[in-house]
């Protein structure tokens, strides 16, 4: 329907006309059809969103009444309304997308954030490069997950499914209302300007295509765990099967969040011009907190699924994880923080999101306090056991999460209460998060080697002997090679290697690769559950990331100097020569490019690096485009300062050893998650073994 109504692209001569600023008189439209049909699209989107709100209200009430009164007809309303709601939200999203693609600047949101000269891909991604559009993306993903539960939840008990979809609808209704009342992207400008204001140049980057959607898939994916937790509390019973239904959703969300965070980190790394990959910026912390809680949830759900223990804790974690996602949304969207991610400061929005927070988090925790004692605990285990190791994991992850939480919110609370303005910077997080995370890393390889219920610590230690020796050798080698770096860095590298070798040991022990003939071991490797492979991959990935962080932070080098043409600059074992400056025109920007040749110390030419200063006339703004040269997994990183009158340039040159491991590790974690997700036992919609029927009996 929408596509049929789409008019032709604006004629080329319109694009090339001098820019008319906002408020300038607008010539009559070129095409009569455009003026008749085009206005429909935004209104259609607006209307679809209202219908979605109505559907969400139905989906949030009827199934719950049905679950209470045991009315199968009312309960069965949930699934089709979830699908319809998604269809309408998708329609609203598509409408906004069409407005962006055809550059309909009579829509205020498009006018403020787009420009007809921007490349197509950025016209599309600027949909979510602003507050209103990113909220539309948020609800699109939320209702998408709701629809997935509706489609793949055939094996769920009817009551659980009805309740969970209803809770999902409450969240959706709150955010539909938020968009319609405070952040409507479909608002029109009476006098449509001829050209848009352009997207913030910082956001004109391929990163915008991936980072926000992945992050939101993660954030919002945890809403499923939340809805299931609330549904279980409403129903007042829970069993091991609950964990099996919830785990794939948590895993999927966790995977997306992992690569979303890593992608954002890489984006910041190459965009901001000084090669930092993590800033402990409140907005980054807002995404790290749900990740930490979600990682804990992933592990506690394993205990619950396999051993029926930690049920109440898992429910609490499910609530907390999504609560942290909501808090993240609040921090970023309310304008209490100022950062690239904060698009607008409208106090009404802040109050509205705060109200959503209070209602959902407060309500969920109150329900938890009231109903959780009714849930039956189960599954005994000794402190030294697989369960014990997973409890250890949960303890440290949640404490680390709490330290990030306090460091992020303390300045806000202090300013609200006393008016004093402080900043809690990286030193705080390094001094709290680091010491809490390292023990977790050291213990991690032991976990998978321990038996359920009662583990053999000595046996596990013996099997990890090779890994420990490898770690010790790494530490010694690092000490010997990298003299003068931070003292703790070689130890950090040792821990990273221990984690990686521990993951390999786990697989070697399970396949008996060193004891059986190769063919037999291969058979065992194929027979191994994919979730075991997944865990080993994810753990290995964490080690890889840690190694990258340690190496890039501790052993990198930097040069900040002024150069004139012909000057040489040495770093690590490379020599850069400044060959000159030249200009280059892009579609909606102008580059001032510095050309540098890179040679080995013996004179062999390796390549050229061309960092630039990119100016965007539409916003009168200049950004730094760093040049990166990859050598193995290390990188040379070069950025330009403002050119001086005498033709010299200030340059910042960094050598970042092993820096790519940081993001490679995240990719390995993602692969681990994907392997685990493909495990037959976890596959969404896989037929349940007959025995789950028995497990579904009331557990109280």
């Amino acid at each position, binding site marked *: 329907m929408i596509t049929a109504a789409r008019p032709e692209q604006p004629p080329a001569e319109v694009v090339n006309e001098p820019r008319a600023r906002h408020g300038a008189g607008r010539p009559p439209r070129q095409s009569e059809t455009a003026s008749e049909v085009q206005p429909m699209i935004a209104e259609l989107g607006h209307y679809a969103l209202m219908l979605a709100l109505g559907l969400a209200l139905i989906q949030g009430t009827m199934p719950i009444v049905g679950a209470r009164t045991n009315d199968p007809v009312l309960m069965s309303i949930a699934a089709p309304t979830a699908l319809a709601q998604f269809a309408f939200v998708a329609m609203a999203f598509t409408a906004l997308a069409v407005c962006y693609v055809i550059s309909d600047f009579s829509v205020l949101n498009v006018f403020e954030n787009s420009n007809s000269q921007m490349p197509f891909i950025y016209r599309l991604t600027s949909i979510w490069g602003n507050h209103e559009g990113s909220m539309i993306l948020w609800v699109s993903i939320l209702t998408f997950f709701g629809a997935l539960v509706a489609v793949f939840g055939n094996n769920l008990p009817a009551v659980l499914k009805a309740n969970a979809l209803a809770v999902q609808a409450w969240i959706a209704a709150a955010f539909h209302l938020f968009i319609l009342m405070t952040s409507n992207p479909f608002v029109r400008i009476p006098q449509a300007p001829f050209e848009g204001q352009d997207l913030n140049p*910082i956001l004109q980057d391929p990163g915008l295509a991936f980072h926000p959607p992945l992050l939101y898939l993660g954030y919002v994916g945890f809403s499923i765990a939340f809805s299931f937790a609330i549904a279980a509390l409403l129903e007042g019973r829970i069993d091991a099967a609950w964990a099996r239904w919830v785990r794939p959703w948590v895993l999927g969300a966790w995977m997306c969040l992992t690569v979303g965070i890593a992608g954002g980190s890489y984006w910041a790394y190459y965009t901001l011009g000084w090669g930092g990959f993590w800033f402990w910026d409140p907005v980054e912390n807002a995404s790290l907190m749900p990740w930490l809680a979600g990682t804990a949830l992933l592990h506690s759900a394993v205990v619950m699924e396999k051993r029926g223990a930690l049920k109440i804790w898992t429910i609490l974690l499910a609530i907390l994880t999504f609560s942290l996602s909501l808090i993240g949304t609040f921090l970023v969207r309310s304008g209490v923080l100022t950062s690239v991610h904060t698009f607008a400061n409208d106090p009404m929005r802040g109050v509205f999101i705060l109200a959503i927070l209070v209602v959902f988090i407060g309500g969920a925790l109150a329900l938890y306090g009231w109903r959780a004692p009714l849930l039956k605990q189960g599954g005994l285990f000794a402190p030294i056991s697989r369960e014990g190791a997973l409890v250890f994991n949960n303890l440290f992850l949640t404490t680390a999460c709490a330290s990030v939480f306090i460091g992020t919110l303390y300045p806000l609370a202090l300013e609200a209460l006393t008016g004093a303005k402080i900043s809690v910077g990286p030193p705080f997080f390094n001094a*709290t998060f680091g010491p809490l995370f390292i023990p977790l890393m050291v213990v991690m390889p032991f976990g998978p080697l321990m038996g359920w219920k009662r583990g053999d610590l000595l046996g596990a230690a013996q099997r990890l002997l090779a890994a420990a020796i490898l770690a010790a050798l790494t530490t010694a080698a690092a000490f010997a090679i990298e003299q003068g770096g931070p003292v703790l860095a070689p130890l950090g590298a040792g821990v990273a290697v221990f984690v990686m070798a521990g993951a390999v040991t786990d697989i070697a022990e399970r396949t008996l690769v060193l004891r059986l003939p190769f063919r037999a071991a291969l058979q065992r490797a194929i027979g191994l559950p994919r979730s075991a492979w997944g865990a080993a991959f994810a753990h290995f990935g964490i080690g890889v990331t840690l190694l990258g962080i340690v190496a890039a932070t501790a052993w990198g080098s930097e040069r900040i100097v002024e150069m004139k043409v012909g000057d040489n600059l040495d770093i690590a074992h490379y020599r850069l020569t400044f060959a000159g400056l030249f200009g280059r025109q892009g579609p909606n920007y102008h580059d001032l490019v510095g050309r540098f040749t890179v040679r080995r110390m013996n004179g062999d030419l390796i390549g050229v690096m061309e960092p630039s200063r990119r100016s965007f006339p539409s916003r009168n703004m200049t950004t730094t485009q760093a040049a990166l040269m990859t050598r193995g997994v290390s990188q040379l990183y070069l950025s330009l300062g403002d050119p001086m009158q005498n033709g010299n340039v200030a340059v910042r040159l960094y050598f970042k050893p092993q820096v790519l491991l940081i993001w490679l590790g995240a990719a390995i974690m993602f692969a681990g998650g994907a392997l685990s997700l493909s495990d037959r036992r976890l596959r969404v919609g896989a037929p349940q073994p007959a025995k789950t029927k028995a497990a579904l009996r009331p557990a109280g």
Partner: protein
Amino acid sequence: MTRKRRRLVLIGSGLAVLAVAVALMLNAFRDSIVFFNSPSDVVEKHVPPGTRIRLGGLVKNGSVVSGSNLSVRFEVTDGKNGISVNYQGVLPDLFREGQGVVAEGALDPGGTFKADSILAKHDETYMPKEVADALKRSGHWKDDYGRQAGAASGGGGK
């Protein structure tokens, strides 16, 4: 081990980790919190030399002097008082005279502020919130800052 003792072990180890975390946090808070000050704050509160602070205000027009080897000297003002700032390195893209700036560092005994970082903000109209508030307090807020800041719905710096 009985169920009760197991639970005690769990709760005990949980509390122990929490205690360690609290100790770490308190310790880190003592060392790593940096207060934001306007030039008037610095003068009125007699911020002692050597204390790490963030100094925010406007870069005074005509005050930027570049020295050799990327060193730069400028004055940060809130209209009432001004503090002279020394910095060595590459200034952020949007560092301009008359624009808001946040410098982090410490005063030296001579009263000059030695900055080791100048906060990189990424929007031509963006004004750090702390600077805007400080300017409002000192009565040097101009309405067009507000209009600019409002129009800059594209965001700020990282």
